[in-house]
């Protein structure tokens, strides 16, 4: 077992345990912090796959901007106490059963699929994840979706201000 595999299993365990803790922690602030741990683990996976641009963007956009926005809203509404209403046992049981059965069905499907046998993801090499390659592609073939996404951001900004402002 070489270093890449050890790192893969470590990051996978970190991602899954942190994702579980997002659900299990009662305090919303702790959930946000565990979700940031998930994002760092996923960024580690991107670095293992040599997708350097996405690893940095994932940390900057998700852990840096979106999670700070979540923390800001939680602090603003003063929810950092245990504000969860009483838990319904049947609701929890039904949720876990349906999610677990979906996972089991999909995993059994993946194990039976023959098309992806002996297919490997290339680790720690390959230059398609570099900023140079992605930038050339983004500003040549995908320049129209890129510009449309700026319009999307503008409309989201206007929408957030209109919804959030006091009557």
């Amino acid at each position, binding site marked *: 077992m070489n270093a890449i595999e050890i790192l893969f299993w470590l990051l996978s365990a970190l*991602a*899954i345990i942190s*994702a*579980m803790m*997002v*659900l299990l922690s009662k305090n*919303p602030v702790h*959930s*946000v912090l565990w*979700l940031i741990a998930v*994002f760092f683990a*996923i960024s580690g996976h991107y670095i293992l*796959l040599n*997708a350097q*641009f*996405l690893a940095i963007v*994932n940390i900057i*956009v*998700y852990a840096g901007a979106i999670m700070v*926005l*979540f923390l800001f*809203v939680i602090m*603003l*509404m003063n*929810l950092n106490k245990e*504000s*969860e*209403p009483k838990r319904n046992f049947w*609701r*929890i049981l*039904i*949720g*876990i059963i349906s*999610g*677990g059965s*979906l996972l089991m069905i999909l995993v059994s499907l*993946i*194990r039976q699929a023959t098309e*992806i046998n002996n*297919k*490997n*993801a*290339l*680790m720690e090499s*390959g230059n*398609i*994840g570099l900023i140079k*390659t*992605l930038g050339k*592609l*983004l500003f040549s073939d*995908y320049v129209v979706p890129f510009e449309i*996404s700026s319009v999307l951001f503008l*409309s*989201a*900004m206007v*929408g957030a*201000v209109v*919804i*959030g402002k006091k009557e």
Partner: protein
Amino acid sequence: MPIQYYIILSLALFCIGIVGVLVRRNAIIIFMCIELMLNAVNLLLVAFSKMQYNTAVIANKATTVGAEGQLFVFFIMVVAAAEVSVGLAIIVMMFRNTHSIDVNFLNRLKN
């Protein structure tokens, strides 16, 4: 690394997100679970792009097959950021009107 490992890891993260949406009633936690599902899909897209590159690079050293997958992840991040800003504004407005972020209060919308 075999692609099956990445698929199963992404499926596990995605199903944890689904269980969170079904179980929790706090609107902010539900929102965070949606982010978790989006990230699981992003991880799978990157893994598949490296898988396609791995098969194409044998024939041609300078190929960029699979870069579209990583660009798609970039656009998913853009849309997720826009979605979070609007969604959190909706949650703040809901808290201002009902003084709670329990999603069960939202069934008042039907009256």
